[in-house]
């Protein structure tokens, strides 16, 4: 079905970006928030048709050899809606949070460009267009990473941009190779021709290129090393976007590669499948293990993201309908949860200057609303019902059970998957549990910034609090009413199998 909406969703932030750069700091922040609202409306406007199984598309013939094609199917929409939703809330949060920072205009311009890149990645139908937006995302988000302009930020930024661009160029190689083998770069045509690609002798090399290219952005082992440095050094709203939303561009790419371009049936019973699922397990354990060791809130959350992206990859690599469903739903859920947690971390920094985990003792009394949101996010991350993290893990567990019925290798993978899901929940509990416990039940011991110490509550003002509450209660809402993401994800997984 032809529709202008998939194109508009990218165009609006691109056009808004220069305007945000010209305006004064205060109006620039508000203008940015406003333009994300408009984009949000556009994206939501696609839901009615897409949920009925239509694929919206818009072809932009610019005279290049390959046309720019925008497409919204159920996977695009679920990733798009959660990206723009979180982005919109974070933009409102930033209006207050960023008002004390330098270079607010620059931050807004590159936030909008990153948004365009992110939405562009999930809304394109050919590799050519996908690559444009993928690189746009890498480059624009670099400016958000180094926003503070400290030495630490520069060091993290250099790692980020070099790994991002080198990964991008590797990705480009795979994309071009795919195009020249199959003669098309259109995702739908590629899906029809995946046998052609799969019978090419270099198909695993191509797959490797894709996995490295998208994996750098997604933060999968072993190309995750930029992530724990880059995510925490950015300002808190940017961390929320980097960790909650932008790593999903990589996960989205990996889903497309496995289910559309190469075809899961062509790798299911071969060694690449084993490699990918091992990566998922390593990510889950490595991220959690490193998170337990951290003393800084944001750094811990960044490692937690590495662990959580492992769940998404696990879901993808189970190659069963419920596994894919769980992976896709976790893209949605993790964005909300990690958004909540980073925004809470930002509120702690903004209000009381707290950056260390030990500072959070007794914070529940000083900032009750923020701590409630943080607790919900933390519990959801552990995977407890009725929060939304439970929903994803439930489907991942179902997927593991499904795969265990498919022969001896499947049996091993399935059982291992279940064991990993359980143990990693315990590991999550090991680092999220104490924080929540100390926040509510331990007396403050003076770790809180002395000048700000006092009895009055220190929750942030409405600009920051409202997005926080919406996201925080979002974890609860989508835990009790998971129909929306599950419906779209099921639609996608039915398309794949």
């Amino acid at each position, binding site marked *: 079905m032809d529709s202008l909406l998939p194109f508009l969703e990218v165009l609006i932030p691109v056009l808004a970006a220069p305007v945000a750069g010209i305006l004064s700091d205060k109006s620039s922040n508000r203008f940015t928030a406003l333009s994300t609202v408009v984009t949000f409306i556009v994206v939501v406007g696609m839901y009615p048709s897409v949920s009925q199984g239509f694929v919206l598309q818009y072809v932009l013939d610019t005279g*290049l*050899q390959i046309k720019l094609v925008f497409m919204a199917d159920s996977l695009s929409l679920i990733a798009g809606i959660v990206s723009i939703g979180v982005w919109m809330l974070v933009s409102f949060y930033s209006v207050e949070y960023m008002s004390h920072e330098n270079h607010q205009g620059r931050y807004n311009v590159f936030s909008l460009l990153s948004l365009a890149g992110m939405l562009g990645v999930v809304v394109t139908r050919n590799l050519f267009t996908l690559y444009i937006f993928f690189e*746009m995302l890498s480059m624009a988000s670099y400016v958000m990473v180094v926003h503070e302009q400290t030495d630490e930020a520069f060091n993290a*930024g250099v790692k980020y941009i070099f790994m991002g661009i080198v990964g991008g*160029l590797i990705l*480009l190689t795979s994309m*071009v190779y795919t195009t020249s083998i199959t003669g098309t770069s259109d995702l739908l045509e590629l899906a029809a021709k995946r046998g052609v690609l799969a019978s090419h002798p270099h198909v695993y090399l191509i797959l490797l290129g894709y996995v490295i290219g998208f994996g750098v952005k997604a933060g999968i082992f072993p190309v995750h090393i930029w992530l724990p440095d880059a995510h925490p050094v950015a300002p808190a709203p940017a961390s929320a976007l980097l960790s909650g939303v932008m790593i999903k561009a990589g996960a989205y790419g990996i889903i497309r590669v496995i289910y559309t371009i190469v075809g899961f049936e062509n790798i299911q019973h071969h060694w690449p499948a084993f490699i990918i699922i091992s990566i998922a397990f390593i990510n889950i354990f490595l991220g959690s293990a490193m998170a337990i060791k951290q003393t800084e809130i944001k750094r811990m959350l960044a490692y937690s993201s590495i662990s959580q992206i492992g769940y998404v990859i696990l879901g993808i690599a189970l190659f069963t309908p419920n596994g894919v469903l769980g992976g896709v739903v976790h893209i949605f859920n993790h964005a909300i949860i990690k958004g909540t947690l980073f925004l809470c971390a930002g509120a702690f920094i903004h209000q009381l200057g707290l950056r260390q985990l030990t500072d959070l003792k007794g914070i529940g009394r000083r900032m009750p609303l923020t701590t409630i949101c943080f607790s919900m996010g933390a519990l959801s991350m552990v995977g407890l019902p009725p929060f939304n993290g439970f929903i994803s893990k439930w489907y991942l567990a179902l997927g593991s059970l499904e795969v265990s019925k498919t022969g001896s290798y499947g049996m091993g993978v399935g059982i291992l998957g279940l064991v990993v899901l359980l143990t990693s929940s315990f590991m999550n509990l090991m680092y999220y549990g104490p924080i929540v416990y100390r926040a509510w039940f331990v007396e403050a011991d003076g770790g809180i910034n002395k000048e700000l110490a006092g009895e009055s509550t220190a929750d942030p003002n409405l600009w920051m609090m409202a997005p926080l509450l919406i996201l925080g209660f979002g974890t609860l809402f989508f835990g009790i009413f998971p129909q929306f993401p599950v419906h779209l994800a099921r639609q996608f997984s039915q398309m794949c199998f």
Partner: protein
Amino acid sequence: MELLIIILLPIVGTILICTIGKKSKLLRNACVLVPAVVDFFLVAYLAWQVTHGGHYSLNLVDLSFFAIKFEATALSVYMALSMTFLWILTDVYSLGYMEHEHAQTRYYACLTLNITAAMGIVFASNLITFFIFFELLTVAVYPLVIHEETEEAYRAGIMYGVYLLTGGAAVLLATVILYNVTGTMYFVPGGIPELASQSKTTLTVLFILFTLGFGFKAGLVPFHSWLPNAMVAPTPISAVLHAVAVVNVGVFGFIRVIYNVFGAELYQKMGFHHIVAILASVTIIYAAVMGLRQKEIKRMLAFSTINQLSFMLIGISSISMVSRMGGFLHIYFHAIMKITLFYCAGAIITQSGNKYLDKMGGLAKHMPITMTCFTITAIGIIGLPPVCGWVSKWYMMEGYFAQGEPIFPLVLILSGIIELGFFAPPIMAAFFKEEVPGSFNFKQDTSKLGNEAPWTMLLPIVVVAILAVVFGVWGSVPHYLVKPVLAGLTGQVF
């Protein structure tokens, strides 16, 4: 008639500049700009006509062995259009850049004379005409290289002369041999038919001589050393001649040899395309690595140019149409991107007095527009979207993958990674790092844009930077023109 005007008008302009240059600045500026502008519009008119089936030729001298003839083919107008357009911008830029320089008359006279040389080369319909203007270009650029009249400039000038005249001699020798064995030296679509029956030795000798001759101008390693040294020339010269006209003429020479002398089929049958592609790959990697080691902006850009020229060679000597198209498009795209980088470098050097890459910290605060344009085009040179360099790179890679030679795409990618290494640090420093005291020497630092170059320099910078982005996402003129070029050269409709 149109061709005659295109070729003679710059000569008239040169003579007028020489006679009235010292008397009236205004009249001289008019004499500089008018030939470039008129030539551009005539070339644009020819481009329109030729792509719609028009035929234009001009015979100046016609003796049996010595003929000066011109013909407007799709390829000629394709090359001429980018050159004349960028020449106008460079003239405008020069007005600002040369404001306080010495020997302006000589500068503008030579700059304008070079239009004739470049137009003569691209419109030449036989090798002897080609050779005459090829040498004219070499000679007329020399006064511009030594413009500063310093020791360094003279040394660079001597190197320039020796290298390029050697190349010219090789081309002349090749032309004579070609005339001896085939009795013709006209460019023929699909190649000179008599060559097909020649012995392998003759063909190989011809190929070596042509490669040597054009390799000097196209900066193939090991014939490239003149180019970084020639960067002592004023920046507009580095921009239009050493990033566009002179070096592109080297690539153009390769195109003529491959498609109009040997013919693509014979060329492949002899396996020459592999040799050129391998030479170009070596050049790409070598130049990229050398670029990493440079300390001065302009020398770094020179190595980047050497690197990018070999991209074009890889593209044009491919046997797949997509790769060829990528190579031809890269001639346009590289010209636009590299000229922006040189314009920016010139603005930075004249305004801030700093020519070193490691002292760029904090520069973006003083010159935000210049640095933004510099960044945009650097992104394009690395080969990242949405700036035009990536489009041609995509095409070249696609073709090579399709013909089963994945090594060359990997070279292109590797080169992009290395180039990231030399473009990223100065740009990051300029935007995000603090200024090191004493690195800049601005004349004034008051208003926000007070440290930007004057508008005559800023305007060309902004125009080409915008074009670089436009061509990256919108096919437009280059894509429209490149198809008739390929059809004319190979006879295949693409």
